[in-house]
């Protein structure tokens, strides 16, 4: 059973994330300027520009607010694809543990042993710089972990008596996989999905930092990129490079709190472990 202490963490995580999601949604209302409008470059923080301006004179505070949109979108979208693909492959390969399962697992294992960061970088560099290609690069390398975990859970569950009984009553394979096994692995899927968002956001930041994303798209990673390559870091303009770092860190923290401590919400799963 959950006690108050453990349920505080996911609430905190939820609060942080809701804040950023709200910022992203209401960006046009909150942000003082259009992040693409150009004024004087390299301004220090002031009344007009809370966080100064960047090398071409765009308001950094507005960039940051709009950056939440893209960073969160890429995070959520990639995580959705990764989790969907990983879960389906995991369930199918665990359920058909014969030839089909072994082929899927073979591919999964290969995808797991390939160092994913270099591959992502190579992929992103090879394709044209755009946010969709960034998403593809993130997805291509990170579905394997989810597939592995879901498969091993499926392998356990498929041997439970109630699955045998479904077979005995003429219930088909698809129905068993998606009406009976899926609810039993849903918790793992949700946790993996939450963590996938944060890791996708980190990867996106990394790739954008390296300049592999679209040069005009505004995300936290791309703010960092320009801060670094246009002398922001060199001159220690902390108002330029610190805010995106803090935002990314806070979001990752939010997802971690939610993902690692958000389990056990489903009241019946506790009971299942007892029987």
């Amino acid at each position: 059973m959950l006690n108050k202490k453990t349920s505080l963490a996911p609430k905190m995580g939820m609060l942080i994330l809701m804040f950023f999601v709200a910022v992203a949604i209401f960006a046009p209302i909150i942000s003082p300027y259009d992040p693409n409008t150009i004024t004087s470059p390299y301004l220090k923080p002031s009344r007009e520009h809370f966080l100064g301006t960047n090398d071409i004179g765009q308001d950094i505070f507005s960039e940051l607010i709009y950056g939440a949109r893209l960073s969160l979108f890429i995070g959520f979208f990639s995580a959705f694809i990764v989790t969907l693909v990983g879960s389906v492959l995991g369930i199918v390969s665990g359920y058909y543990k014969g030839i089909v399962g072994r082929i899927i697992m073979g591919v999964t294992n290969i995808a797991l042993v390939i160092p994913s960061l270099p591959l992502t970088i190579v992929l992103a560099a090879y394709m044209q710089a755009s946010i969709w290609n960034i998403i593809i690069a993130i997805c291509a390398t990170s579905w394997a972990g989810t597939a592995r975990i879901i498969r091993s859970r499926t392998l356990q569950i498929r041997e439970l008596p109630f699955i045998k009984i479904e077979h005995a009553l003429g219930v088909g394979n698809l129905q068993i996989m998606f009406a009976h096994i899926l609810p039993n692995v849903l918790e793992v899927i949700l946790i993996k999905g939450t963590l996938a968002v944060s890791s996708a956001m980190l990867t996106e930041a990394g790739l954008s930092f390296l300049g592999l994303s679209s040069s005009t798209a505004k995300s936290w990673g791309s703010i960092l990129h320009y801060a670094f390559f246009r002398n922001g870091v060199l001159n220690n303009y902390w108002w330029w490079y610190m805010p995106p770092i803090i935002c990314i860190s806070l979001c990752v923290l939010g997802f971690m709190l939610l993902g690692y401590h958000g389990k056990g919400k489903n009241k019946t799963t506790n009971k299942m472990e007892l029987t």
Partner: protein
Amino acid sequence: MLAIKDLSVEFMTDHKVKAVDRVSLNIRKGTNTTIIGETGSGKSVLILSILRLLPPSAKITGKVIFENSDLFQMSKKETELIRGRKISYIPQGSGNALNPLLIIGYQVAEPMIVHKMITKKQAPQRSIDLLKRFNLGNEERRIHDYPHTLSGGMKQRVLVAMGISAGAGLILADEPTKGLDKSRVFMVVDCFQQLKSETILCVTHDLDFAQVIGDYVAVMYAAQIVEYSKKDDFFSKPLHPYSEALINSMPENGLKALKGFAPPHDTYSYSGCRFFERCSFKSDRCRSDPPLVEFGIRQVRCWKYAD
């Protein structure tokens, strides 16, 4: 209704295990047959092989004729259509026999839905009706509950409802009373007595249960059926020495336990009676395979009755 002919099941593991050895059994429509026998004698394997639910490592030979067709010759699709709709299976209720994350109402109605007999919309009402038949109590609310809120006896009744949900005429049950105390057993007995039109083949360890439920009794010992008879004949005058020992072990008959264990599976290839070591009537001829002696429909596999 169901004719099992020379059914053998061998498991192709490291060393071969012959779990069922040339079993023949006729189940008449509308009758109840119980299979009794000690642990490891192959009862569950026999039941599961009828519906082809054994893992691929099981090699099955023989025939099972159901409504004029051989179940073992059917395609996967045909088998799926028979399962639940013509022949169904009721497992023991302890453990995870029900999906812990799905509500009871859905699970009871699911066989009807997958066999396209009802729509999802009709499911709640149909499961209420079914559960009412087995007196689950408070059915309208119960169908929204999860399995962990049920007691063992209630789970067993839900499983029976699930088993007959799609209208199967032949019910195979594997130890439906296992893990239940005596008062719960009565509830299950009640449940099974509700199934008047269905034909039941039921594995049990519980001789009292067999006595109440069954019309016929088959005794399994070391992968073979050693005695088959009408219930009354069986309980008043068991023929096989093993059956006699079983009946003597019932509490009302003095709880005389049978000593020793059934022989291990690798000795089945030797000839001779498998009950030899533990039998108190053994003689020299028991060292070769005993014949199956028939008295009308009654059968016994023992040299004692050979003359």
